[in-house]
């Protein structure tokens, strides 16, 4: 990715020493990072490394044990409701209601975020046109191909114009062509000033990100642009960076 002139841009996610313990177990161990407006952050880590717990804290679902963090300028302890209003979220399940039509889903989620009927109407027209889904407006989700569902779920997550969108493994179970198209959609969104926070297990996708964070055992072991990380670990691909990290920790433990 071309380096952005980041000095003029605002920090939208700022995390300092954020920690979450469950009993004796420290799921997230004093992580710190910041993400600027319009950046794409690839949030990587093996399963169980603490990614989900970190996301749950940043999306206002879980209270941190200690540390500080602001999301869209709001505090994760005291302003969880405000955070929820200013973020979008899409999970790997592309969670739409299968027994509702495309438009009914848009209307429902629009309503959840407090959009007016008129706004929902105009936004859904615009959204369907952009995705080329006008013909499917009144079709049930259950009949849609996975790739369309994925794009639709992403667009629905952006319906209320959030500052940040959290994508939890947004390309799981999707074919490579569709994955590539989906990343085009992500670039477009980021170019419009929306910050994208994405988890993924695909290392080729990590290369597409502005910045990458790799969590291991609750800590962020690597953080930087894909190129910087590859230089730091003296390898040629993100895949190797990841394996290098995983190996070093499995030897140390």
């Amino acid at each position, binding site marked *: 990715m071309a380096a952005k002139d980041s000095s003029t841009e605002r920090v939208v996610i700022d995390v300092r020493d954020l920690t979450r313990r469950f009993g004796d177990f420290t799921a997230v161990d004093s992580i710190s990072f910041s993400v600027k407006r319009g950046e794409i952050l690839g949030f990587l880590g093996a399963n169980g490394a603490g990614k989900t717990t970190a996301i749950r804290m940043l999306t206002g*679902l*879980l209270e941190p044990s200690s540390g500080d963090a602001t999301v869209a300028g709001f505090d994760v302890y005291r302003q969880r409701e405000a955070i929820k*209003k200013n*973020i979008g*979220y899409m999970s790997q*399940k592309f*969670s739409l209601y299968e027994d509702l039509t495309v438009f009914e889903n848009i209307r429902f*989620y629009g309503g959840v975020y407090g959009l007016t009927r008129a706004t929902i109407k105009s936004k859904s027209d615009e959204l369907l046109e952009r995705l080329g889904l006008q013909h499917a407006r009144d079709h049930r989700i259950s009949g849609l191909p996975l790739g369309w569902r994925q794009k639709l779920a992403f667009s629905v997550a952006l319906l209320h114009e959030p500052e940040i969108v959290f994508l939890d493994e947004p390309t799981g179970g999707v074919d490579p062509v569709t994955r590539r198209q989906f990343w085009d959609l992500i670039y477009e969104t980021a170019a419009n000033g929306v910050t994208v926070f994405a988890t993924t297990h695909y290392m080729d996708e990590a290369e597409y990100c502005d910045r990458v964070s790799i969590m291991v055992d609750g800590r962020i072991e690597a953080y930087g642009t894909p190129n910087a990380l590859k230089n730091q670990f003296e390898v040629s691909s993100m895949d190797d960076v990841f394996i290098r990290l995983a190996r070093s920790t499995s030897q140390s433990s």
Partner: protein
Amino acid sequence: MGSFRGFIVKEFHHIFRDYRTLVILFGMPVIQLILFGYAIRNEVSDIQVGFLDPVRDELTMDLKTRIDASSYFISKGDYDTLDDIERAFQDGTIREAVVFEPDFSHKLRHDGSASLSVIADGTNPNIANTMNAYTLVIVRDFQRDLLADDTPAPAERGIVIDSRMRFNPELKSIFLFVPGLIALILMLVSALMTSITITREKELGTMEILLVSPLKPIQIIVGKVLPYFLLSFINVSTILVLARLVFHIPIRGSVLLLLAECLLFILCALSLGILISAKSKTQQTATMISLSGLLLPTIILSGFIFPIDSMPKILQVISHIVPAKWFLIIIRGIMLKGVGFEYFWKETLILAFMTAVLMTASIRSFKIRLD
């Protein structure tokens, strides 16, 4: 052959590693056997019986003692007037009354015949019949012993028993089933459907989206539950109208009070549904828990069909935590006995308390899932 054996082994691994299946596999037969073996008995024991005995001499004392001494009955003592008996029936102190005619002993001694009224609570027709039969046997024994030292009694002599039924004179079993059916259907629609609909959102992943949205957890819960609340209420109304029009079941008490109590029970069932959904990850589990944990007790331990009084002590104790048990006492009171709130305010209070506890627990466990 080896691969086949491997297959069998794998299947056993599935079974033994899933403790829920294991519980259902081995727990259900045991629970069902105990329930069906002990709870489902139409013979009765310890029926509370009251007497109206204007005579109170050794003859009537003898008969009363015999009734009290049998394992089927427990004497609640003498009542002074028929009104007192009626009140005791209404508040459930007694379920049978034996009324002696004023000169019972005199007539029996001199004419060799006297009459006796046996009044039974007919809200449960099966039990009423059984109570009646048991009373009859005791009276016959009493009469045989009495006349044994006399000359053999001519056929027309002896005690004439006049059996009557309170609340349900024709012993229609539909009277028994309608209140129970209301409880059952409300449990089914409210608890089962609620637990399924919430777990479905979990399975689909839409629950995650809802939780991340600005909706408050309480809004999500109420939003999920409200439609079922309305549907359940429509259900109750339909059953009541049908019962009235098709089966001619009376609603002797206040309809408004009846509906209010039904609303309370619906709330209780909905809370149970939310609680179940908070504890289960899949629709399947929710269904299983609802069916085995709610429907079975509602049918068997509520007094719907089988009398709680004649169950073993331990089942009687367990029946106290079955909401339907209290609900049934209440709606039978309103529909069949026609009594007012003063007769079942305690049951209502218990039900309200249960609902409050369940609701708090369900909302709390829903929130815990958030953290």
